[in-house]
């Protein structure tokens, strides 16, 4: 049977070579995301971020010998079944050399454990933040540019403490992302000496949260920490608590970071009353600005959650392909850490031509992405930077890096 495969392999390789000899080849990278499903509204800018990276690379000479980088979209629906199916499709049918994705931590867990790790395909997640991904037994095939919840949860707790909050109520949406983040936050805030007066899980996508909020406000608290997606329940909770006069001050993490929060609740109400941490970038950093200007031109907000992460993950894979000098999956996985971590010529978003030249000259490169250093540790995780965002005078979010 094995022999038959090899004959088939040989035959079709010859076909492929014959078919493409005259053209520059197409190199496919899987772009797995929860296009439909519970976070559909968050996924649109993330996919656009990935696409921007591919477009810039193709415009600046493409991969290897002028080959085109094609992002193959597959829908993980935030469901592990669909995640496994999407992974199987891009790995086997589309023959992708690497994968960016797959949005939700649950779908990512299924996809990498069941498909990509056994197949030896490297996957960089741009938005799966569950701590459980850190300790996967992954043969160095699972990376992520989104920092684990462990970092953001404690960053938010520290921020709350530094801003004078001593007693907080908290509520979290019962999903893989928010439940993990809330757990870390609770532990960190208590460790600092703060008091959690009430901690209440809620089911996302309900029409009203007034009764939950009334219970939460019962013991008196200076503010409410919300861990939720803005669309699933976050906006509804803020609206309900403001309208009912239960909470005026809010803390939140990046699932709540979206312009529509301000647009729907109102800038005047929120100004001075909300702080959101976001896995983000130094907004004054040239790397971020390079990304932000290009992304804004495509009609998306550069601050959209995880859009910059999508860009960086795609750019890193392209660098790894270039560095490996081939589309061999194992070589790409091996090259990934080298192009992400120092030492090397610093490459910023959009600087594909520079990176290509440096690599061609045999130099090392070190990608400094839109979201930060992107230096992978032994688990394939990054520390990540966080910004604190408040409502600015123009009715938009304005952020400062937490230093």
């Amino acid at each position, binding site marked *: 049977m094995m022999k038959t495969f090899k004959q088939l392999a040989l035959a079709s390789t010859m076909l492929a070579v014959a078919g493409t000899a005259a053209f520059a080849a197409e190199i496919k990278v899987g772009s797995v995301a929860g296009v439909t499903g519970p976070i559909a509204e968050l996924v649109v800018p993330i996919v656009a971020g990935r696409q921007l990276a591919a477009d810039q690379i193709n415009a600046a000479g493409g991969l290897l010998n002028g080959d085109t980088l094609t992002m193959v979209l597959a829908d993980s629906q935030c469901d592990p079944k669909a995640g496994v199916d999407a992974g199987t499709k891009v790995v086997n*049918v589309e023959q992708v050399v690497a994968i960016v994705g797959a949005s939700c931590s649950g779908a990512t*867990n299924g996809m990498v454990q069941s498909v990509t790790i056994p197949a030896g395909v490297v996957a960089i997640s741009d938005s799966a933040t569950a701590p459980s991904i850190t300790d996967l037994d992954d043969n160095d095939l699972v990376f992520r540019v989104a920092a684990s919840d462990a970092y953001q949860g404690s960053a938010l707790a520290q921020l709350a403490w530094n801003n004078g909050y001593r007693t907080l109520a908290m509520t979290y949406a019962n999903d893989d992302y928010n439940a993990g983040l809330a757990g870390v936050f609770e532990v960190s805030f208590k460790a600092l000496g703060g008091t959690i007066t009430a901690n209440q899980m809620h089911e996302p996508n309900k029409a009203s949260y007034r009764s939950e909020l009334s219970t939460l406000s019962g013991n008196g608290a200076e503010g409410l920490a919300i861990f939720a997606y803005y669309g699933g329940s976050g906006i509804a909770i803020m609206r309900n608590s403001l309208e009912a006069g239960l909470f005026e001050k809010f803390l939140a993490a990046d699932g709540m970071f979206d312009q529509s929060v301000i647009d729907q609740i109102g800038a005047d109400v929120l100004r001075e009353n909300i702080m959101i941490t976001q896995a983000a970038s130094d907004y004054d950093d040239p790397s971020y600005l390079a990304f932000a200007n290009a992304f804004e031109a495509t009609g998306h907000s550069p601050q959209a959650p995880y859009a910059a992460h999508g860009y960086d993950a795609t750019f890193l894979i392209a660098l790894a392909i270039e560095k490996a000098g081939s589309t061999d999956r194992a070589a790409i996985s091996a090259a990934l850490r080298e192009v992400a971590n120092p030492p090397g010529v610093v490459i910023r978003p959009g600087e594909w031509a520079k990176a290509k030249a440096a690599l061609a000259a045999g130099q090392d490169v070190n990608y400094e992405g839109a979201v930060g250093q992107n230096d992978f540790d032994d688990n394939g995780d990054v520390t990540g930077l966080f910004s604190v965002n408040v409502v600015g005078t123009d009715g938009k979010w304005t952020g400062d890096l937490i230093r």
Partner: protein
Amino acid sequence: MDQLYGYFLYGLSLLTFGGIYAMLTLGLNIQLGFTGLFNAGIAGFFVVGAYVSAILSTAESERHLGGFDWPIPASLVAAMLVSAVIGWAVARISIRLRADYLAIATLGIAEILRLTFKNETDLTNGARGVSYIPKPYENMPEPWNQILMAAVVLAIVAVLYFLLERARKSPWGRVMSAIRENEGSARAAGKDVDRLRVQAFVVGAAMMGLGGGMMAHYLKFIDPNAADPTTATFLVFVMLIVGGSGNNKGAILGAILMWTIWSATEIFTSMLPGDLAIRSAYVRVFLIGLMLQIMLQKFPDGLLPEKRLQSSDSR
């Protein structure tokens, strides 16, 4: 890597997914096809089977109850038993309900079961799910691991098919279709109709539990989203209706065919550029819905309609 080999592996994954869904459609076929029980709570038995098998077979973990490191076959048997017991309890309270009422009651019970697994975080790790579920033959070299995984699933489906065909042609199966066709005369003939319905419901629930358990092992990861009613209940109905309700071959064909369509249509829509690819994900769902309508209108009995038993079939 080579394209044809890739298609071959994708084909195996279609067969594996389709085969696991076939366990669900065969289970539904006993309930709906044979006996006329409109169980819309497939996702509930699916999630029970998946979590029972996952928790029993994983290595010990501090994230959830257990794990108990059981061998996979033992944990699958346990998944069937627990699903059967829950199926029995559900049947006891709701079996007298007719058609749509039973459907809505079971749909509600399934949501309650799913919420329980989602909220009892200490037992199940809640929304964060259970990882490191062992997969049969995962340590074999590729492609043998995938061939054997598909083979195990298809072998189970074949065994179930064989047993169900035997059951259908047995006196038990004949009484079942008699109940479905004309309950009154079955009662008049002295049959304990409710008891027989409970039996059919329990057997079907056990098979759905088996399907859930198999899915957990195949995915190596399970969370409550995997038991979303759209893909764990409605899709199963679509598969059975398209294949042919009341026909075991149809149930299997429908599962594999519909899964293939559900999955493979994306290969074409993702060829579209940029934003269009995202929008086309919605179009794909539209086309699946439309195809279902056309199927229902043109082939209301499914691709393989039920064959009514003739008296000569009894031996």
